[in-house]
């Protein structure tokens, strides 16, 4: 006379016993809880019981929906909990491991500043020594990123482009309200209150700062192949100038010369030219043809083949993208 425990039904002995006899084992029980009671007798067989039957089916449906709801939430919350624990533990371990292993690694790395580290090899030597006559750029870095390794740079501009597109997906409010933006993102209850109310100091300073900054940016862009700088830095400076102007004089004045359409056209043209020029160069290079692009006299402003126009394109892209990020963050429209 072995008295069974209270939770006999859930105990593994029960399940084993069930499994040995046929009987529904744990597997089936899990499934059965998901199956509805399909009608054993169709309503028309039992005359007059149709409504009862309907009610029964309805109840079953409700019951099942409840079961599913609980199941659903259980998986959800459990998933979340697991996520937390797993993240904490694993990532702490991973981080410590990474720091230590990297420390070990860098101990073995070549000594800092030593002229005979493996990094100093034919690659850099050729960049330095033949860069001038092969790319015509005095700024070796510019020559490298825009001529030797131009594909990286193309991808880089593409990253900027795709990021701006993604930000537009997130933040741009379309003309006809698509209901996708939830309350709180409308300009009136967003940070339009922080828009400058024609602050005289800001305006006066911006009045003479903006042109200077613009000029400097243009200089940096145009001299990218001769001096430190280039499209990216110059473009950032131009973008800063635009932001300053926007802060000083508000949206309406900025809209007079820079709208979403401006951004679209500029980026469109710049990227198309960039891709077109580069694909020409890639094509010729890849098929061993000569790209008949004159390199000009080194040091002159109109020199080093495609590097100057590419710098200009990059500058345009970067400046517009920076300003567009800013504008989208502020108002959800350019």
């Amino acid at each position, binding site marked *: 006379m072995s008295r069974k425990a209270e939770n006999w039904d859930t105990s593994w002995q029960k399940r084993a016993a069930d499994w040995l006899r*046929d009987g*529904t*084992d744990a*597997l*089936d029980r899990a*499934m*059965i809880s998901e199956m509805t009671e*399909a009608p*054993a007798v169709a309503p028309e067989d039992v005359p007059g019981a149709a409504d009862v039957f309907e009610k029964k089916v309805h109840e079953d449906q409700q019951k099942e929906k409840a079961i599913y709801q609980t199941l659903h939430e259980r998986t959800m919350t459990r998933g979340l909990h697991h996520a937390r624990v797993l993240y904490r533990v694993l990532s702490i371990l991973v981080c410590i491991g990474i720091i230590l292993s990297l420390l070990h690694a860098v101990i073995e790395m070549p000594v800092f500043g030593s002229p005979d580290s493996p990094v100093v090899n034919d690659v850099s030597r050729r960049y330095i020594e033949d860069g001038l006559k092969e790319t015509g750029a005095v700024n070796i870095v510019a020559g490298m990123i825009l001529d030797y390794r131009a594909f990286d740079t193309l991808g880089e501009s593409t990253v900027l482009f795709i990021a701006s597109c993604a930000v537009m997906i997130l933040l741009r409010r379309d003309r006809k309200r698509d209901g996708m933006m939830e309350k709180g993102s409308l300009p009136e209850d967003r940070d339009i209150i922080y828009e400058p109310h024609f602050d005289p100091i800001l305006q006066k300073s911006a009045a003479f700062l903006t042109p200077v900054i613009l000029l400097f940016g243009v200089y940096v862009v145009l001299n990218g192949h001769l001096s430190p700088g280039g499209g990216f830095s110059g473009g950032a400076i131009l973008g800063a100038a635009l932001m300053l102007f926007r802060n000083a004089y508000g949206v309406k004045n900025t809209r007079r010369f820079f709208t979403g359409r401006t951004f679209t056209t500029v980026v469109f043209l710049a990227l198309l030219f960039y891709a077109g020029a580069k694909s020409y160069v890639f094509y010729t290079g890849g098929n061993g043809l000569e790209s008949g692009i004159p390199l000009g006299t080194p040091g002159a402003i109109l020199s080093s083949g495609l590097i100057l126009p590419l710098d200009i394109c990059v500058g345009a892209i970067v400046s517009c993208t920076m300003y567009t990020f800013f504008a989208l963050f502020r108002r959800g429209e350019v």
Partner: protein
Amino acid sequence: MTILMMVLTILLPAAGALALKLIPGLDGDRKRLYLMTGCVLLADCVLAAITALCGDAEWTFLRLADSLPLMLKSDMLSRFFCVFFTVMWTVPVLYSYRYMEHEGHDRRYNMFYLLTLAALNALAFSGTAVTMYLNFEMMTLLSVALVLHEMTKDAIAAGLKYLIYSIAGATMGLLGIFYLATNTNGAVFVPGGSLDASAMTVSPTVMMIILLITIVGFGTKAGMFPMHAWLPTAHPIAPAPASAVLSGVITKAGVLCILRIIFYVVGAGFIRGTWLQQTLLTLSLLTVFMGSMMAFRTDLFKKRLAYSTVSQVSYVLMGIFMLQPTALTGSLLHIIFHSTIKTTLFLAAGAIIHQTGKTKVSELEGIGKQMPVTIWCFTLASLGLIGIPPTGGFISKWNLAQGALASGTGIFSWLGPVVLLISALLTAGYLLPVTIHGFFPGKDFDYEGLQTCECHRFMLISMILCVAFVILGGMFPGAFTAFFGRIASSLM
């Protein structure tokens, strides 16, 4: 020629199923539907017979990987099984024409019925282990529709249980097939096996463990312990004709797979006298005994029959694991006799449920007065299952016992027959009460309350055919014994 016949035998039922699907207006017209099914099955019987008359042939039609060819092959065993499958598939059609009236969805039922037959024939003609696995899976996936037929909660639960056990078993089989395929070029079926123990990549012990897993895996289909639990759940749920073929025929597909693995890939010599053989024998004897016990304890009629299937199919397995020609002959005989008997029993049970709606054995007092012919068929079939001469069951069990005694397997050579006897007694114990209470309900039973409700003659025809075969096959077993003896001797 033979290849063509093989392919036709396999494809005809599939084509028939397609026709059933496509031809419009069959839903209302059950007569035409079943007429078509019957014709397709009869034609397939003819084709199978022709194929059986043709000689050996093999055809590699695809290679999954270099070491995994897909091959159709016609040898004695495959021809026998093909004919057996097809005929046993044809018999219940008449029955189901009447029985399925209140079940509905006839078209779907017949489609899957035919498709399953196609898969079974392909299984019979499989020439390599991988082909066999492939058709085995197909057969599982198609036959589950027969279990799911009613789509009630229990049916779906049972169907899923069937599916999961079968696929788990098949995967265990596949696990072994990988090893066998790498060790015996592509696990092509060769009589006597093609595995030479000297040039194996793994040690014999590992190989035996793998073989154990494989055989248990395929044994799932044959309801062998420990993977038997699906059978008593799944078989009774299906409609009576479906459960008849599930129990009588499809379980034999598992037996076929085990036969192929043991005698055509590995070879009896590798297993004979090892712990593997003893384990397998233990498992099968355990199943025989346990199945009979459970059947004895169950009151639900069809479930009791399902348990008896568990025990009876393990007779066959025991005969195979004895690795002795006579025993193998006995098991092959038992395959056909058990499947005919079990078909009869299930059909009778179905007829009783169909006519009276009684599902428990304890409710069946006086049933013999209501449906005499059915119960007579039932009684004769039960006598066959118990193994009383001159029925077929006696022949097969006699051979089994002979073989067991002749196979020098230590204690099993006498333990086998003993278990056979015990379980025969148990069989009598769980089958005969139906007859006894059916005909002699006791004196305080009002005969006036009974009105005879014999089932339709179509349903009777199927049963009577089977019973006749059991009796006649038992009286004149010579041809069968000779044929199976040839197969057995070709393997050892």
